[in-house]
């Protein structure tokens, strides 16, 4: 029997964490959570999840971007698939840097509110054997 893939959700919105956690568990994933970047990074270093879902606007409105850089600084996490999930573009229209332009060292950007079917499909794709890290965000700056 295959071991369940693990997903770490880093988000400060307990409702989002509860809903997405339930969705992923029902699809057979093992789910861990953290409510801020610092705790999420610490958990990722020790647990080495198969996938990380990362919010951007937490205590600081750009916290997730900094957390992502720190995740990529950890050699063991450099190619761990990360989906950045945020409403930063709708909440701050002045920020118009496309996440697909290659600057974001993530594997995928998904806007909030999330589409459950899309999230499940992308989670399955990014945790499948043979997935090439960073392919969805213009190589995500080669994931640093």
């Amino acid at each position, binding site marked *: 029997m295959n071991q369940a893939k693990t997903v770490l959700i880093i988000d400060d919105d307990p409702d989002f964490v509860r809903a997405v956690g339930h969705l992923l568990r029902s699809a057979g994933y093992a789910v861990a959570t953290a409510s801020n970047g610092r705790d999420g990074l610490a958990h990722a270093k020790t647990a080495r999840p198969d996938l990380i879902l990362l919010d951007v606007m937490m*205590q*600081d409105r*750009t916290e997730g971007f*900094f957390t992502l850089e720190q995740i990529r600084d950890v050699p063991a996490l450099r190619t761990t698939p990360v989906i950045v999930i945020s409403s930063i573009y709708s909440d701050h229209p002045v920020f118009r*840097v496309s996440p697909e*332009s290659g*600057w974001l060292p993530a594997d995928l950007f998904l806007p909030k509110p999330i589409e459950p079917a899309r999230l499940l499909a992308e989670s399955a794709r990014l945790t499948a054997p043979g997935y090439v890290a960073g392919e969805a965000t213009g190589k995500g700056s080669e994931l640093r």
Partner: protein
Amino acid sequence: MKILKIPKKDLDLFASVLPAFGRLYAPVKRGSGYAFDQPASWSDVALAYPRTILPPRKFFLPPREALFSFDSGTGYRDLLAEASERQVLFGVHAYDIHGLNILDRVFAQGRYSDPYYMTRRKNTAIVGIDFDPDDRHFARSMAADFADTGFDLFLSDIGDHYLVRVGTSRGDDMVVMSGCLLSEPTPEDIAEFKRRSSERVAAYRTGVELGDLPEILEMEYHSEVWKELGDRCLSCGSCSMVCPTCYCFDVADEVDLGARAGRRVRTWDSCLFRTHALVAGGENFRKNRSSRIMFRFYHKQRGFVAEYGRPSCVGCGRCIGACPAGIDIVSVIRMIRGQTDAH
């Protein structure tokens, strides 16, 4: 030079895209001081800092670095690639930018350029920011209070916005990448920049007269001041370690047990150290502390002026705070000029 502006409230968004240009370092609180380090989040960044403990020199001349390794079986291995990581230094003050420009004269523009320094310099973007001088700053006296070169972007506080001077094509790339965060300044913004610039000049409370200092140092070569300073100086080298323009280094081979492999290592040195002028055979050209501290002042305020046309001091005031014996460069210059007593 292209001049733009960015709302202060959007600086965090702008900083978020900068890692695309290299690992981001910015001033963060460290104990009772500040240091250039990787911020864990934008709220860690302290842009209104007086000065960092160490200057940005550490990013170009690390306190300790292996230059190459050697092995009797495989030969030499160049470690230059380890100096090629891209970096972004965010929030660098004008005097520290001048400090780097001075180091350039020694390591990049001289007869022999240093490939390790050059590689890091080329791969490091500088985003400057202005500052309010405190009692230790005398950058105005050293013509290092305003930077017009040596940065990719320079931010100046004009109230709700920063005025952004774009200094290089890499700076322009940063602007382009950040999308629509920056915009054209208005005439009112420029007027505010000029007003604050004048205010900042007037805010300097510490200063020294430099005009004829090299000549006065020439006349005071045998002054009792040097002996008095030598009696106080502990030769700890703290002033050198925190100086943006000190560049003395030592090079030694570290050989592994078995003596078949090793590496050549460069480490910071200081002209205040007793061993600095010690040579083979045991001769020491600067045996006395007074001769060493005297050399430091003559090198920075006289020798460098003769060689490069300006002192190699930028008036950051770090050495004043770092000296455990309370030796204060501003006081020393005044003493030499006969303006105050030795104590």
